[in-house]
């Protein structure tokens, strides 16, 4: 229970259906830690894990009459989500903390807590569907009815065990229907706005966050300043740190040429940011690492799927096949798109869909 409309409505629905429901909020990040530092906002109201949100969640629980607890997992969240977030950016990749949070906290730690306190399953307010397919003998993750709210992109890492213990009661509903239901249950938070940003980066300025976090940790920002280079190798300028860039970025390059320039590639090793015209942003292939397969056990043969390379992206037709990388010998999946895709970004996820079924996904190398 985050204190938001979705999870609150789930709690109310399940309670009304007669289930034995326990409300849990995971305290994951202390919003006051970096408040006021290095240009971070002074007071952080109404952000996930803020007192306001816990208050809202608790009031909803009281209103619908279920036991409610707050469990603290700040240490794990910092270790498994925040730290990797900072390190990814500093290595020239664009991370997705929400997927890490799902993998490590919401569907791992939370499920452990649930089992420990005697619960069978965890229900969340995610817009997704989970169902057991008897023919395949597998739990399937599917896209929700409201595709505009589809959160399956962030859930590609869920295992069979995790899916077997998860409920997504909002999977068949649209957002307006959810708000309507919240109203019918008389929930005070029915009109609460959705939070769209990364929960621990208030205001969305991740660069400020990285500065403030490293300062708080007593670590200096690693020097990743380097050269701005064209796709033909010509050095055309300098940059102050690779974490300031993401693939496809146009602003903030500090150089003006006749035609628009975009970030094509960021090299953590050479600290170079390679820029080029729009045409250089397109690529037909990507490699996905640390793949998690849901709909199938193994990818024995190449499969035709539709692939999302970021959350806001229309799944694009592609062929996926298993390959082995040298020199690690690790299993990876090679994705070959029918049409070149724009701004494939290392650090993001490649999630494979077969219709509305999530086949699986992995991290873009």
């Amino acid at each position: 229970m985050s204190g938001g409309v979705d999870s609150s409505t789930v709690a109310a629905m399940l309670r009304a259906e007669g289930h034995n429901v326990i409300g849990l909020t995971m305290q994951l990040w202390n919003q006051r830690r970096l408040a006021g530092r290095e240009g971070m906002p002074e007071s952080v109201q109404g952000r996930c894990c803020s007192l306001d949100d816990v208050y809202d969640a608790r009031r909803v629980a009281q209103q619908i009459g279920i036991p409610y607890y707050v469990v603290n997992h700040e240490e794990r969240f910092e270790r498994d989500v925040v730290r990797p977030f900072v390190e990814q950016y500093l290595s020239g990749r664009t991370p997705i903390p929400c997927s890490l949070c799902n993998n490590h906290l919401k569907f791992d730690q939370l499920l452990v807590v649930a089992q420990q306190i005697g619960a069978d399953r965890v229900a969340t307010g995610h817009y997704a569907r989970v169902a057991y397919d008897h023919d395949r003998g597998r739990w399937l993750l599917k896209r929700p009815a409201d595709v505009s709210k589809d959160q399956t992109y962030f859930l590609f890492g869920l295992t069979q065990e995790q899916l077997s213990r998860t409920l997504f009661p909002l999977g068949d509903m649209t957002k307006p229907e959810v708000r309507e239901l919240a109203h019918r249950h008389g929930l005070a938070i029915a009109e609460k706005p959705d939070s769209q940003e990364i929960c621990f980066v208030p205001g969305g300025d991740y660069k400020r966050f990285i500065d403030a976090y490293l300062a708080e940790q007593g670590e200096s920002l690693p020097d990743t300043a380097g050269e701005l280079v064209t796709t033909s190798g010509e050095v055309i300028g300098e940059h102050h740190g690779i974490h300031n860039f993401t693939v496809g970025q146009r602003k903030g390059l500090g150089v003006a040429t006749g035609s628009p320039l975009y970030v094509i590639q960021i090299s953590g090793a050479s600290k170079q940011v390679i820029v080029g015209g729009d045409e250089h942003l397109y690529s037909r292939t990507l490699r996905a690492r640390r793949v998690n397969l849901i709909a199938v056990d193994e990818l024995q043969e190449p499969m035709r799927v539709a692939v999302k390379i970021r959350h806001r992206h229309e799944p694009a037709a592609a062929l996926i096949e298993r390959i082995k990388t040298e020199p690690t010998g690790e299993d990876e999946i090679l994705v070959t798109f029918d049409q070149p895709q724009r701004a494939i970004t290392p650090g993001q996820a490649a999630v494979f869909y077969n219709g509305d079924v999530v086949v699986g996904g992995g991290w873009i190398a």
Partner: protein
Amino acid sequence: MRRIYLDNNATTPVLPEVFEAMRPYFTERFGNASSIHHHGQETRAAVENARESVAQLLGCSASEIVFTSGGTEGDNLAISGLVAAGDHVITSSIEHHAALHACKHLEEAGCEVTVLPVNGRSLVDPADVKRALRPNTKLISIMMANNETGVLQPVEEIAKIAAEAGVLFHTDAVQAAGKVPIDVKRIGCHALTISGHKIHAPQGTGALFVKKGTQLRPMFHGGRHERSRRAGTENVAGIVGLGKAAQIASNAFARGDEKKMAAMRDRLQQGILAQVDEAGVNGEGAARVPNTANIRFDHIEGEALVIALDLKGLAVSTGAACSSGAIAPSHVLVAMGLRPDQARASIRFSLGKQTVEEDIDVALSLVPETVARLREISPRYSAPVKVGSQE
């Protein structure tokens, strides 16, 4: 579901007799105790009767009792009221946050504060107190009984050291009052804090003993209530409740009830330790108040155990109620030398006057099996998260 309450160090239920004693003082006898008319006279009488009862519980005279809103106010009033800028204060690392933060506040106001460590049984060494004395030491504040472990401090020895040095001694007796007999003369303290809701009186009540002749600077300025030591219209009904609770406690000591309490606590403690291995009492070997058992259950998360037990109807806690949800493990347990994971694996059981043998039976049937289940569930219940890192 039958609920068993074993978290009496967090708060206690108001006893029926206390409630009955308070009842007329809401709608029938409602006068402002300072009013000169009949209505004020009758509530003034009730307040002064209550004062006598509290004084009797503590072994002092009524004029030495200041009514407060509870333990936090009492600690703050004593600590800030007995000390001035430039003074030095000695306290311990296991004090309640009310006292610790009051001392920290003093530091910001220009005082020096020494925080003494404790040993593995959370005991302050009087020799450390003596060594910490400075020419400008004004106050020593060491709690009589710790709220998390129940361990009793050597307050009489410390008071002697204070007396020899001409220094004031305050003790937070919030968790000791009503559980062990208190005689402020025998202890030798200048100030002593008690809290109503820990002795079966309502929340929002309490008292501070201030030895006659001790100069105390008030925190609340206004009327001349409490001999100008604590302004504010008296919470008559609450004070009446506190007085009745004090009386009940005094009578209970006269009957030796605390021995029965200790026996029940020991049965709970022994019963748990007999059925659960890799468990131990925090503060073992030190004298404790008769109602508290702080037990460490290795390899589990105390938070999960508290929740699991609550869902079965048994109420206990992982430490002070005030620090629920805090990141840091109990400062008391850490000061005793427990590792953070051990501190987080500790549960406090605390009995009250309303606790019966049946409650202990139920607790003994629930705790071992719940601990066993938690231990069975490994930290990673499923295969390691394979898509964890993006590396």
